[in-house]
């Protein structure tokens, strides 16, 4: 048997639904004037990110605490998710509301948590470091990229993650 006479394993039907949206909106796209107006609206939004940021930071702190209490638990996925999800919210929302440094830092926290297999004390120390740094940025109302100091803080956290994986290469998912 080869690929030419092998029986079909899965039957699939392909459907082309009518493009209702296209029929309603027509052609031509939107002009730059409208898009610039929308960009301006986003850039000038006056939403105070601090209460939202605090809420996600509290959630991250709870996630760290729960991970500490269940550090030897068999099912590590919910333990990691408890820290990963608030990290994702900080990453997604920081940049929307003028805190790009929160996004930059939280992004590397997510990348770290996405690839670890198991939580241990050193992992929690690193995540705690992220929490402390993110809290300082949010509570200090450090908008923008944080300048050289922001880059230094970020670099220090990244180096901590790199050091961890150099020491524990086995705690990294095989596909990562």
């Amino acid at each position: 048997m080869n690929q030419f006479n092998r029986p079909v394993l899965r039957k699939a039907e392909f459907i082309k639904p009518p493009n209702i949206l296209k029929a309603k909106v027509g052609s031509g796209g939107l002009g730059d004037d409208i898009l610039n107006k929308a960009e301006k609206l986003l850039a000038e939004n006056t939403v105070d990110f601090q209460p939202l940021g605090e809420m996600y930071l509290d959630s991250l702190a709870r996630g760290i605490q729960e991970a500490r209490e269940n550090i030897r638990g068999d099912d590590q996925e919910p333990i990691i998710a408890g820290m990963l999800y608030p990290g994702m919210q900080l990453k997604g929302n920081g940049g929307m509301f003028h805190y790009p440094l929160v996004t930059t830092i939280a992004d590397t926290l997510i990348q770290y948590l996405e690839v670890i297999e198991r939580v241990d004390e050193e992992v929690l120390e690193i995540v705690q470091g992220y929490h402390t740094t993110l809290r300082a940025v949010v509570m200090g109302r450090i908008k923008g990229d944080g300048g050289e100091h922001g880059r230094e803080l970020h670099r220090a956290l990244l180096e901590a993650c790199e050091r961890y994986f150099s020491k524990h290469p086995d705690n990294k998912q095989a596909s990562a």
Partner: protein
Amino acid sequence: MTYQFYGINILIVEDNQPMLDITKSILLTFGVGRVITARNGETGFKEFCNYNPDLVIADWMMTPMDGITLTRLIRTDKRSPNQFCPVILMTGFSERRRVIQARDAGVTEFLVKPFNARDMYRRITQVIERPRQFVKSDEFFGPDRRRKNTDSYSGPMRRESDISGQRESYELDIDITPHKKDS
């Protein structure tokens, strides 16, 4: 000639009120006629059934029902008024496995947060101009996870369909380009 969005209605499902407000404002600036809102997947599905919107923009992480479960309901629930409705999923995740997870639930496009107005516009344009065909099998019902690509190939034409002008190739279309403020 430009897009006329006044005749369409869009459902936004987002639990974060500032994010919901800002997304709604962007859509209204685009000229969308009606923007319906809901704070989680559960109420989102009720509104979906009530209004049968032309497009759904949903957040991923929500309680008690997230955007992935909402998408599954839209695609497979008997009460769904339009199983083919495009769904754009907003999320802070950009890792490939998360994108694949969303695609497997039937999501049409993926919008990575933080985004700017042009990022959102590009996703809506994709849905309008490059709609996905749907796949129905025992294991899956939803938009084809490979996007039909008809114009990027510049090599020799050898297939029968090339001669008849129906050339088709496919790509796994995952746009997870990091957001740039100035783009």
